[in-house]
């Protein structure tokens, strides 16, 4: 077991390293953070020594060979230092600090959205399969395809407009944007309440999109189970239709779902990009977009490292889940 776990961890470290290195090499060779030194409106050039120093400190000097910059960056990586932000962001914030403040904001969104979406999708999918061809099944199928066919920004707009409509009618509504109210005292009950309320709409968006695709998968696996011999055996033993499904069918239907889970987290991350933009959350998704826009080499590599770890963790979680559900693969 120890051997298995250590081997697994080692594989993951290698995978995360390869992904991040690739992202670094790509962004370092394609982005030009040095251009910030030569704005078109400048009347006189920055002195050469200053410019060189500016670029060297940030490890983005185009005169340094790519692989030397990569080696510098790797050295930092081993010490747990992901470099500083570059590009148009001249403030030189360590990327690791930037990630540390933003990850908790994004993670609560992604984890909560995926968890609710998964549970909702599983329940809806199972009901749709068990009551196949009923009004509920058709309605949920239609709804799922409606949601799947809409781009995430449109869903966000619908949710925001619905909230606005309620607010106009009743005078009570959820905060439209921002995860935190800067006017409230941090750590106070009021501030916590505001944060919880602010979380509702973005979570709805993520949960609904996750549930739509999950319910489709779940319906298929449940239909497989419904036609299976062991479910017939369970009923022949004297279990009613519902109890046979709960005791024998559900667990079997969930086994293939474990596979999708690993991908769902990746999906939730890209979903959260739009959510963070349109709800004005200072999360990791927003940082990813701005890092790419600003030609922030270190920031981009840092984001990729984070998503790589996130995906690998969710893959591990999916494996554990499957092992727990299915004794045959233990």
């Amino acid at each position: 077991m120890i051997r298995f776990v250590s081997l697994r961890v080692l594989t993951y470290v290698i995978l995360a390293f390869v992904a991040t290195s690739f992202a670094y090499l790509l962004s370092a060779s394609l982005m030009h953070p040095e251009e910030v030194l030569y704005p078109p409106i400048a009347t006189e050039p920055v002195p050469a020594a200053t410019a060189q120093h500016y670029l060297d400190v940030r490890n983005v000097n185009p005169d340094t060979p790519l692989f030397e910059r990569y080696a510098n960056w790797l050295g930092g990586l081993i010490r747990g230092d992901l470099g500083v932000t570059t590009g148009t962001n001249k403030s030189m914030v360590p990327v690791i600090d930037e990630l540390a403040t933003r990850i908790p904001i994004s993670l609560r969104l992604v984890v909560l959205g995926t968890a609710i979406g998964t549970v909702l999708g599983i329940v809806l999918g199972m009901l749709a399969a068990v009551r196949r061809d009923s009004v509920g099944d058709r309605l949920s199928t239609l709804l799922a395809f409606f949601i799947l066919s809409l781009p995430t920004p449109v869903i966000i707009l619908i949710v925001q407009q619905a909230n606005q409509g309620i607010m106009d009618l009743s005078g009570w509504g959820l905060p439209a944007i921002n995860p935190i109210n800067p006017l409230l005292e941090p750590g106070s009950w009021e501030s916590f309440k505001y944060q919880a309320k602010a979380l509702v709409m973005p979570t709805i968006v993520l949960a609904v999109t996750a549930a739509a695709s999950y319910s489709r998968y779940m319906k298929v696996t449940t239909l497989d189970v419904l036609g299976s011999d062991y479910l017939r055996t369970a009923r022949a033993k004297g279990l009613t239709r519902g109890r046979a499904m709960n005791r024998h069918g559900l667990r079997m239907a969930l086994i293939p779902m474990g596979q999708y889970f690993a991908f769902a987290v990746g999906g939730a991350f890209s979903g959260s990009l739009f959510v963070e933009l349109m709800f004005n959350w200072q999360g990791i998704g927003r940082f990813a977009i701005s890092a790419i826009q600003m030609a922030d080499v270190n920031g981009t590599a840092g984001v990729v490292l984070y998503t790589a770890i996130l995906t690998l963790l969710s893959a591990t979680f999916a494996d554990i889940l499957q092992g727990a559900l299915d004794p045959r693969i233990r």
Partner: protein
Amino acid sequence: MSDPILSVRDLSVSFPSEYGTVHAVQDLSYEVHKGEALAIVGESGSGKSVSSLAVMGLLPRTATISGEIEMLGHRMFELNDKQLSRLRGNTISMVFQDPLSALTPVYRVGDQIAEVVRIHHPEISKTRARQRAEELLDAVGIPEPGRRASQYPHEFSGGMRQRAMIAMAIANEPELIIADEPTTALDVTIQAQVMDLLKSAQELIGAATVLITHDMGVVAGFADRVLVMKESRMVELGTVDEIFYSPREKYTQDLLAAVPRVDAGEAGASRSVAGSAMQKIADLGEDRPPREELPTVLEVEDLAKVFPITKGAIVRRKIGEQRAVDGISFDIREGECLALVGESGSGKTTTLMEIMQLRTPQEGTIRIGGKETGALTRKERSTLRSDITVVFQDPMASLDPRMPIADIIKEPMRVQGYSKERMDERVDWLLKMVGLLPEHAARFPTEFSGGQRQRVGVARALACDPKLIILDEPTSALDVTVQAGVLAMLADLRARLGVSFLFVSHDLSVVRHISDRIAVMQKGRIVELGDTEEVFTNPQHPYSKELLSAVPIPDPEVARSRRREAIDRKAFEGTFGGFLADREDSQ
């Protein structure tokens, strides 16, 4: 006779389908009395399984049912799912066909047996139910029941799973056990054990049994009465002796006549009608010159195939080896039919694969028409492919559904570079040879029945005048009457064309009718090889004897004399002086 415990009256079941309503069962009426064994026999699609699912109340919701089923005073169609579930597993229980999929893979076998006890007797503690599960496993002859009970279904062999299913079926001492093709998926020796067990279990708890099967041999040894079904209707109902010795209906006679028999040699000695049509097949292909004078078509010498068993995903280590084929030798002469028989996992298919590859085997040598396969050039090998052809087990899976059968038959000829005119000519001739019409050439495989599809498969195998046809279980997917037709055609082809057969089968009774010589395989070795007549009448190796004695014989008198006690009565009654008494005390 006592009052019936189950009476089915005018039962009709139909399903909606894309092609209109399918009438699965029509106007079926029968009764089952206490302690009686009724067999419902019929070919595929005769509605025998559907009728039993109707008794259990387990038909899909799309089914339209009419008629009446009465079980111990309960009118089954008037009960809802909850009321029915109180009867299922307690008063009626069921053993299903495929033991591989009938147990939930994610729960321990012991827990699944304990569950059936606890569903109907919630007052029994979990530990007691678990203990009961172990006693039941012991009773049905599973060694080390304590350890086995905490294993998962995938750790059980097919026969053991079916034993576990029987343990589940008798756990609550039901009044009626329905067994739906309980041994179809099992090897013949295991089949014999499971049928003995089912019979003993039924006698032990005094339950009535409905056995649903297509296998007349199984019926002869098990049933008191037999109900024959054909195309959703009942054909004939009578005692087992009436059905086997003096069937009234033509269909019953045909069905019995088509049944292959291992004891074919002693024909006339048996009063049973079974197997009479098969006799003719054996009579074909007589008066040929002695074997030694004929040229050798295929020669296999010390052939072995070893699969390594590896462990580890990144660094593969060999931890052992599986000798799938372990040094076998045989030869086939021109116009001869050699049967290779053995149970699943005995290495039959691996042997075929090695021969069909036409390459140097891992160990040993294969010679075709005197040429060693390892020494062939690319071109020679490709030409030789037309000399050895194969007919597969599943005719539907081995024919491309998107090709008309003319193209299917032409394909091997095209590879060998036949001219267009010659191909067209041959397609007509081949179709006639296998008993189809030349007009069928433009049709697609789906338009044919199973037996006709297998004939197309044979026509394709014959396309380039092969010297040897390898028949890999060619009739095991077919109904008996169809099987008889295909076997007769094969025997006829051999007599007329002088082609040799390597006939691979698990079914000894089929082999008896068609082969000249027989090779019995066990665990990768040929344990006995000799003339069919000799092997069947005087088997030398203990395994051959065991195999032969396990084949069911479609003659009630013979079958009854072979029955054995197979249940552990003491284990069933439990350690506390009878489980039932124990249960009543606790109530």
